[in-house]
């Protein structure tokens, strides 16, 4: 199964984070329409993979959003939109639509898609292990039925194949940064760009 259960530090075990990666997605229009119509079966963070630098970059956004959720301080309707808005590092939350356009799913543009699902604790008492297994299978079945694309591993190697660097550099203000420009080693530059993007998200709104 290509739906990964992601374990994050400082996240209570009653919250489960799942993530998947699809290449060559052909039905972005359909998925976008489900978001617009607020179809409650489509509570996912859909992120255009071309704006993702690495796993750490993605997970930082997920963690920030979950932390905001734990604080009870969501600025957007739910944790999934919070993830998309977090990865789009601006102070102005009125630009949610903009965030979706740049980082979320865009009809006609999105080819590669990262999907994140945060499952929150059930309100009533239940057998947790059973529920978790059930949830993971159910989420994956639902995604496989509705996302027309090729499942891929959510690794830096896979993600880096689709990163749109001009876009990422522009939105994270990575152009003309002395700390990056002086580097000649490609790998080092990638690592430092990742750090700067993570820092940009952490400092969003300051």
């Amino acid at each position, binding site marked *: 199964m290509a739906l990964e259960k992601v374990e994050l*530090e400082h996240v209570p075990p009653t919250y489960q984070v799942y993530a998947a990666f699809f290449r060559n997605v052909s039905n972005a229009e359909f998925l976008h329409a489900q978001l617009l119509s607020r179809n409650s079966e489509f509570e996912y963070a859909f992120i255009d993979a071309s704006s993702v630098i690495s796993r750490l970059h993605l997970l930082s956004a997920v963690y920030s959003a979950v*932390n905001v959720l734990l604080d009870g301080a969501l600025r957007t309707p739910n944790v999934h939109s919070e993830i998309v808005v977090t990865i789009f590092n601006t102070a102005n939350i009125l630009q949610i639509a903009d965030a979706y356009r740049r980082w979320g799913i865009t009809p006609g543009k999105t080819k590669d898609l990262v999907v994140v699902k945060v499952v929150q604790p059930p309100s009533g008492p239940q057998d947790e292990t059973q529920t978790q297994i059930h949830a993971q299978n159910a989420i994956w079945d639902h995604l496989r039925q509705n996302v027309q694309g090729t499942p891929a591993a959510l690794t830096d190697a896979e993600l880096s194949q689709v990163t749109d660097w001009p876009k990422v550099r522009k939105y994270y203000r990575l152009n003309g940064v002395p700390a990056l420009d002086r580097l000649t080693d490609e790998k080092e530059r990638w690592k430092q760009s990742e750090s700067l993007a993570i820092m940009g998200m952490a400092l969003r709104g300051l």
Partner: protein
Amino acid sequence: MAADAQFPPPKVLTYPASAPPSLITQGAEGRVYKTTHLLPDRPSALKYRPPKPYRHPILDARLTKARISSEAKVLERCWREGVPVPPVYAMDPAAGWMMMEWIEGIPVRVGINEWLGERPEDGEEPAEAAEEAPLIDLMKRIGTAVGALHRTGVVHGDLTTSNMMLRQRKEDQVNGGTGAESKAKAVAGDVVIIDFGLATQSMADEDRAVDLYVLERAFASTHPRAERLFATVLESYKHTFKKAPSVLIKLEDVRLRGRKRSMLG
């Protein structure tokens, strides 16, 4: 446990992680914990400014938020400009915490003292220049790091050898080697400046000179036996940016009058 009860950790650290957080330092304004960011193999330093019971809650919340935010902004600015500082990983200004890279290594203070520790206490014979080369090189690296900081328009506000870390280089992590080699390791590594809690943005010679003066005084009291080497720090600082020489001239004035500016004018 008693200490835990007296100093409750921030809420974020009460959620489970692969290893429990450990309290590293406790200052007047805040605390630093060692913890992890996202993954078990990503160590991180968490700086926490707890609420102050003696302040009005609204004022307290505002001050805490402003101070954490300003420290993070300074770190980002420095990092972008290539000043050796830890990058910020995550933060929650309202909750009063910020996570940044955990610098693997020892404070410069400890490194210098380890180096000096092996020298005979009374033997005043001046060391051979070649023998002291690793320590002198560290002085140069300190001067370069402080110069890079000042060049970006940031003044640290509390420069000491405790607020600089020696980031261990991979090749130095193996233990062993001869006596001289292991001694040199104590002062090896990249200098990383930390704790920007009192940092301000300033391009003024005066502020930069006071920054250097504070370091000079701290250095003299922490490492009296290495005091004469401080000139090397200043010498390498001098070449880091265009206005550095005039900062050093200003430093001479500051030495005569102390850290505080004249109350006249």
